[in-house]
C-alpha cells in the first residue's frame, strides 16, 4: 500500500476533547488489574492508598487508554457486523470521531508505542480524551510497501491537565 496525497491531508486532523462514557469505575479497575495480573494494593485498598502519596485508590498506569468504550445507546458495530467475515473487530479511534483513513480492508498491526504518564487516574474521576493523526509515512519492506500511521491520544483529568499521552504507530499493509 502506498501513501497518497489524499492520505497526507489527514496529518494534523484531530478530535475535540471528549469525556469518556464512564468515569474510572472501581469494578473496571479491578477487572483491568486482574487481566494484567497485577495485584498492587494501590489499585483497590483505601487503607493502603491512604498511606501513600496517592492518598486514594488509583487505576493502573495505562488504564485511561482502555476508557474509550461504546456509549450506551450508540450504534453497536459488534451487533451490526459480527457476521461480516471481513470485520476485524473495530477501531476505538472511531468512537471519538477520528475519521478513518481512506484505505479499505487492510491488515493492521501495532508497530510500536510511546507513552508518557504524569499521574494515575483516580477512582470516580472523569477523563477527557483527544486523538489526532500525528504523522503518516510509508516504507518499503521485505513484504512490500507499508503505511505507518502515528495516532496520538491525550488523556486529561478533571482539572483539564494532561495525565497521559500515547503515540501508537499502526502498520497498514
Amino acid at each position, binding site marked *: 500500500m502506498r501513501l497518497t496525497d489524499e492520505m497526507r491531508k489527514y496529518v494534523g486532523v484531530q478530535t475535540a476533547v471528549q469525556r469518556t462514557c464512564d468515569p474510572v469505575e472501581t469494578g473496571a479497575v479491578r477487572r483491568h488489574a486482574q487481566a494484567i495480573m497485577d495485584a*498492587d494494593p494501590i489499585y483497590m485498598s483505601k487503607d493502603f492508598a491512604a498511606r*501513600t*502519596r*496517592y492518598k486514594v485508590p488509583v487505576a493502573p498506569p495505562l488504564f485511561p487508554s482502555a476508557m474509550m468504550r461504546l456509549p450506551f445507546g450508540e450504534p453497536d458495530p459488534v451487533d451490526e457486523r459480527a457476521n461480516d467475515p471481513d470485520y476485524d*473487530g473495530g477501531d476505538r479511534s472511531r468512537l471519538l470521531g477520528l475519521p478513518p483513513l481512506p484505505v479499505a480492508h487492510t491488515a493492521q498491526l501495532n508497530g*510500536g*508505542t*510511546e*507513552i508518557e504518564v*504524569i499521574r494515575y487516574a483516580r477512582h470516580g474521576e472523569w477523563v477527557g480524551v483527544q486523538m489526532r493523526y500525528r504523522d503518516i509515512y510509508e516504507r518499503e519492506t521485505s513484504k512490500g510497501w507499508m503505511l505507518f500511521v502515528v495516532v496520538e491520544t491525550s488523556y486529561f483529568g478533571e482539572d483539564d491537565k494532561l495525565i497521559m499521552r500515547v503515540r501508537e504507530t499502526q502498520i497498514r499493509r
Partner: protein
Amino acid sequence: MNAVPAEAKQTYFEDVEVGFELPRLRRGPLTTMHLVRWSAATEGWRRIHYDQKFAIEKQKLPGPLVSGEFKNQLIWQLLKDWAGLEGWVWKTACQFRAMDVVGTSLDVWAKIKRKVPSEGYGLVELEFGTTNTEGRESTQGSALVALPYRGGTAVPYPFVPPAVDPWAKTAS
C-alpha cells in the same frame, strides 16, 4: 497474581548502576482465556486477539496474538514495582518486533542503560524487552524512570518533568 508487599523496598538513585538488570517478570503460558479476559476488561474486540479462525484464515497469522497493549501493561508493571512508591515511571517507547502467539510465555526484562542526575530526583534510562517461549525478543524499547535520592524527598506527584528531557533530541 503477584501482590506488591505492603512495605515494598524503595529503590534509590544511588543504589543502582549502569548494567544492573531488574528481576524479571514472567507471565504465561498465556492462553486464549487470558486474551479474552483482557479483551473483556478493556472492551476491545479486535478479532486477531481471540478468534482463531479469523486470525489464521483471514489475517494469515499463525494464531491469535497477544496484543501490544497487553505487553505494554506488563512492561509498566515491572518498571512501576521497581521504581517503588516514591519513584515514577515517566516514559516508555517500544516497538513490537515479533508476534507473540497464544500459548507463549513472556519474560519481561529491563536493564539500566544510563543515569541522569536531575534536580530533585534522578532519571534512569533503561532498555527493556519481552522474550517469548521461542526465545525471540518480541518487544524492544527504552524507558525513563525517576528515582528519589537517598535522604531526599519522593519524586513529585503528579510528576513534574525535568527541565531537560533526555529524549528531547530523539523524540519524533
